[in-house]
């Protein structure tokens, strides 16, 4: 083209234009919010009813979870060289961004895969078998469910049950893993403490969705609001965002980036431990079933370090500013608890020791100021947790 021969400098406009087009495209693709998708308006109550009546038994999709809980960096996570190399470990859920692949087929078959960089952890539930697979150490744990447990519901439903009226994400294993679980947890918090409104529509995973906004009436809590995006057709929650009063972006977000409501291939739920795998048969499910019958305990930690909490917790306050005070001793490394449990114990000890110290009329200890919750660990063996600033925890500790 003679134009470029006459104006050689004009050639540079092309790469500049390419950068512009690519940048604009990337930003548009990442922009998920859209103003009006033409959906008929629905009230909050209608939406909740929709959710209750939702009848989705099968789906497959990708879930991305991001959290910015203001926790200190966890030592040991990047220790094996490449960043994120441990990100497929199930204990590393509490920080950063995580990608899950989810397959559901009725109450008896689910599969959950935590995608890490060149690693994967899977939870596969098929009938009476629950397999936990970890590619990092090529190990599998096998739980055998009794038939009444299978009838009672899915393994996934066991996870969020009994979530206390504190922020669900304080425990790594209690963190909601699918939008479904997270919404159930948030809906359980409602009542006189929360105002529930609809806040328009959103586009999540390419589907149009209604947004439900839960705003605490309590002004002392750290939680700014909880937003739940509900699919306009299937009425299942597609995304849950928890906003902190300290941050502009969601402090915790879990949502689908791709979702398909068709029945997944049966192959996804078949798991046979491959040759060379360390298989651990676990009888823990039976033992825990006994615990579950004893009554609704506020926290049901798995067999990891937090299980060393002893004694009954005290609950101070109500609603969003509930503070739980419990006796707590620093866990020591357990033998025979499995590699990941020992790892998480060591990590937990490291974190707790690195926390800033604090003292007051209630005593002294370490304090963790997160974006959604605070935690105080006293030197006399108590722990106080709540979705409130540390001051509230101090007064709760002093009140005891």
């Amino acid at each position, binding site marked *: 083209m003679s134009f470029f021969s006459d104006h050689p400098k004009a050639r540079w406009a*092309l790469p500049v234009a390419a950068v512009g087009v690519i940048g604009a495209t990337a930003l548009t693709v990442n922009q998920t919010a859209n103003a009006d998708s033409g959906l008929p308006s629905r009230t909050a109550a209608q939406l909740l009813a929709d959710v209750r009546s939702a009848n989705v038994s099968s789906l497959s999709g*990708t879930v991305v979870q991001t959290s910015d809980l203001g926790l200190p960096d966890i030592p040991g996570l990047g220790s*094996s060289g490449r960043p994120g190399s441990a990100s497929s470990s199930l204990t590393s859920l509490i920080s950063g961004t995580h990608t899950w692949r989810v397959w559901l087929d009725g109450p008896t078959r689910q599969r959950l895969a935590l995608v890490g960089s*060149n690693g994967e952890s*899977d939870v596969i539930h098929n009938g009476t078998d629950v397999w936990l697979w970890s590619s990092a150490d090529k190990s599998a744990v096998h739980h055998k469910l009794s038939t009444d447990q299978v009838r009672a519901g899915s393994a996934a439903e066991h996870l969020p049950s009994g979530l206390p009226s504190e922020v669900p994400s304080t425990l790594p294993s209690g963190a909601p893993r699918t939008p479904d679980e997270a919404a159930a947890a948030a809906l359980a918090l409602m009542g006189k403490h929360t105002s529930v409104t609809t806040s328009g529509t959103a586009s999540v995973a390419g589907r149009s969705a209604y947004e439900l906004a839960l705003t605490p009436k309590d002004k002392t809590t750290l939680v700014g609001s909880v937003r739940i995006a509900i699919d306009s057709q299937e009425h299942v929650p597609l995304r849950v965002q928890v906003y902190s009063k300290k941050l502009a972006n969601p402090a915790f977000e879990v949502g689908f980036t791709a979702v398909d409501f068709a029945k997944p291939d049966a192959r996804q739920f078949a798991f046979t*431990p491959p040759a060379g795998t360390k298989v651990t048969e676990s009888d823990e499910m039976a033992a825990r079933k006994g615990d579950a019958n004893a009554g609704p305990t506020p926290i049901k930690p798995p067999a990891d370090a937090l299980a060393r909490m002893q004694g009954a917790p005290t609950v101070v306050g109500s609603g969003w500013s509930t503070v739980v005070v419990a006796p707590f001793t620093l866990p020591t490394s357990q033998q025979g608890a499995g590699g990941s449990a020992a790892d998480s114990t060591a990590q937990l000890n490291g974190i707790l020791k690195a926390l800033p110290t604090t003292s007051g009329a209630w005593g002294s200890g370490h304090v963790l100021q997160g974006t959604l919750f605070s935690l105080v660990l006293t030197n006399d063996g108590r722990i106080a947790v709540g979705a409130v600033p540390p001051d509230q925890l101090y007064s709760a500790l002093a009140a005891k």
Partner: protein
Amino acid sequence: MSAAEPVLADVPERGPGGRVPPSRWLSARLLRSELRLIAGRRRNQMGLLVLAAVPVLIAVAVRLSSPREGRGPDFLSSITSNGLFVPLAALGVELGLFLPLAIAMLAGDAVAGEANLGTLRYLLTVPVGRTRLLVTKYASLMIGALWGVAVVVLAGAIAGIALFGTGPMLTLSGTEISFGSAVWRVVLVSLYIAAGLAALGAVGLFISTLTEQPLAATVALMIFTILSWIADSVPQISWLHPWLLVDQWMAFGDLLRDPPFWDNIARGLWVDVAYAVVFGLLAWARFAGKDITS
């Protein structure tokens, strides 16, 4: 990536109009001579030998050592079950430095090397337009990227299969796939990595048009690569990571899941295309208007 080509399609040929080459944008004869040049250079042959030596070294080392659980490069502990993990482990190791270095060498020679030797002038007297010359140079870089990856994979596959056999491959999801589909997965991994290296080649080609010192171009591209890796490993600038060329390179492991996980692969390919387009155009803008003095 060849995505730069349609964008250049508006630019006319400046060669004599009589002869219409088989491909308008790629001179087959020029490409052939370019590839012959690349293959004939002794340093390139030595480079390929080094690339091929790494998987062989890995395979022999793993064979000789007692099998144990250990930390190391990804896929290393899986080698004993299937020989095809040797090329995967080798790719993971070489992707950090050796493969980008190979591309940097080729890119340095591509334009800066010719300018340094004084042969670029003569090349421009060939009745082939500058744009077409540049496209041919880039095509040879892409072939070079594929070449380098293929050498690593083939050497690794031969060494691995010879030492560890052709058992079923264990995916990251804990399922086993047959040897045949495992071969396909390795081919996909190779293509994905070659695409990333080809995008790096576009950056190298642009740098190569800026200087007449091939060594400077090579070093500059290595600095670019290493800076990208460093930036990618600093969590405080995580907003920048999606824009880095190397960010999704290691995502090739996603192809070894069951079913394969395409999200990061697709993201990586988009970044590759974007880099190839932008830097291809930059190289074109620079090269087509450049005064060739030597």
